């Protein structure tokens, strides 16, 4: 009876679908579910101990100094998200709008703005770490050469500039992405629509707010969602540029660094703690999933309306 159901066609579909499905189940779904389970146990190194209910969550959320570290790191993620929203996505929109005019040389500008996007985050991190060096870095050298010597800073060493410097490196790295996504969106706006608006007004501002923005909005939601996920997963760039501790004194600490440090230990901290690490991972995960999920659903709804 069972064999009867597995007709040739069904078997064929199953053969196509099963291998990829198994991969995703085994290496994405299963680990994520396990991470949830792990957070409820006490861990001694890699050995799982007793079931401790919500103790790990309680620890990272309410017990000092872990609680304030969590809040500190979280607040930096929020800052990074908004800063990148303005300086990466916002600038990206402006650049896209400018590129859209297709002035001479725009093809070259388009290739240039996207070039850093293909570089590895590690390379970008090291590059800017060397560039921001207080004594020998080209950034300070450049400022001096331009007669702006008074602006030189130990960029990555002060809490006032360190996080901004990493945000800058991130924006330099990724600004090409929103730029070209928005540009592609603008290029799809039908000519008739633009003609129509031009009959009514010459104002660029009206053109942007009434026509361009609403029509690229679906792309924008995707770009924002990706930025959101990226900002709350931020790890490589601060890891390379300021180290696992979020130096100086935690002013660049973000959830990714804090999670890694807690789970795997670091040079000057206490031993690794898989329990607290898993609890942090679950919290970050839930936060990202809920916000990104809401954004995606709203986007879908709007697409249907359009």
């Amino acid at each position, binding site marked *: 009876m069972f064999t009867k159901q597995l007709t040739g066609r069904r078997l064929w579909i199953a053969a*196509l*679908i099963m291998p*990829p499905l198994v991969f995703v189940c*085994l*290496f*994405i779904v299963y680990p*994520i579910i*396990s*991470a949830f389970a*792990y957070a409820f146990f006490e861990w001694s190194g890699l050995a799982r101990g007793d079931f401790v209910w919500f103790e790990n969550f309680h620890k990272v959320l309410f017990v000092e100094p872990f609680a304030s570290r969590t809040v500190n790191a979280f607040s930096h993620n929020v800052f990074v998200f908004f800063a990148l929203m303005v300086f990466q996505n916002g600038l990206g929109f402006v*650049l896209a709008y*400018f590129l859209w*005019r*297709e*002035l001479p*040389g725009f093809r070259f*500008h*388009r*290739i240039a*703005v*996207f*070039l850093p*996007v*293909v570089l*590895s*985050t*590690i390379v970008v991190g090291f*590059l*800017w770490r060397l560039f921001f060096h207080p004594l*020998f870095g*080209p950034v300070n050298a*450049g400022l001096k050469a331009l007669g702006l010597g008074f602006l030189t800073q130990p960029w990555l060493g002060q809490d006032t500039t360190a996080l901004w410097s990493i945000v800058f490196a991130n924006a*330099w790295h990724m600004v*090409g*992405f929103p730029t*070209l*996504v928005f540009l592609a969106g603008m290029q*799809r*706006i*039908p*000519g008739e629509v*633009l003609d129509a608006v031009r009959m009514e007004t*010459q104002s*660029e501002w009206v053109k942007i707010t009434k026509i361009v923005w609403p029509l690229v909005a679906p*792309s924008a939601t*995707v*770009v924002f969602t990706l930025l959101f996920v990226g900002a*709350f*997963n931020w*790890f490589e760039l601060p890891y*390379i540029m300021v180290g696992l501790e979020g130096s100086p004194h935690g002013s660049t600490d973000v959830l990714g660094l804090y*999670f890694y440090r807690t*789970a*795997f230990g670091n040079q000057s901290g206490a031993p690794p703690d898989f329990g607290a690490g898993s609890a942090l*991972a*679950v919290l*970050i*995960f839930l936060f*990202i*999933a809920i916000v990104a999920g809401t954004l995606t659903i709203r986007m879908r709804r709007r697409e249907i309306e359009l």
Partner: protein
Amino acid sequence: MTASARSVSSVPTVSSNRSTVWTLDALVQVVLIANTLVMLVPIVIMVFSAFKTNVQIFQSPFSIPDFTNLTNLTKIWTQTNFLRYLGNSFFVTGVSMLLILTLGTMAAYAIARYRFTGSGFILMFFVAGLTLPLKLAIIPLFILMRDLGILNSHAALIVVYVATGLPTTVFIMTGFIRTLPSELEDAARMDGASEALIMWKIMLPLVRPAMVIAGIQNVVPIWNDFFFPLVFIQSDGLKTLPQGLASFMGEYNTDWGVLFSGLTLSVLPIIIIYILLSKQFINGMTSGAVK
């Protein structure tokens, strides 16, 4: 976009506004040139510094170097494991891409071309994987790799890359395969061709453009990944380029010329390919977000 949109958007229709438009264009051009400089100058300085000694870098960071001075590059070639890292990266990326495209196309084909119960659910299941940050499941993954006995091996990286690459690939490929006309397929089916033959002979040749897009979308993050090797790979001989670069940067930390050479060498392959295939790169990498 259409040609008419172009001419309309850039040609001023009202003559009195010509000077305003001209000023605006000038402003736009200035901003774009400034931005391009900000994008390219750091890369140029990096390449220049690769040919300099420490003293030259510190004293004249912006000068044009003597490009025949290959001391730093030779040092990397002869004294480090750079070639090994490069080879590892090629191997891991290559195998991962092969598996991603094969498995991704299989799943997408099944979802797009056949009606069966649960196909919608399966697509949603794959798509849900798009935004899941797998980094956060690194602890269970680590333990899973240990149990599978593939910790500290390329297999650990490949399976993770394939798993993370599949959602985007299935998403892109399904969308594309759905748009393919069914006439050819139906005709072949009438002739009694098997499903496998139809897929292989008739449909697959048509999906190549989507494969390029899905391929580019995955190849860059895999080639550049640092996090998973950081956790899974411990032996120096197995390190991929970004991870090897990190330990190399630690080892030669005082020799800036060598550091910049290392950075330059590691970005060179991808920059060259990018310049040659910029259109495909841009389309591929932004395809998930363009609506």
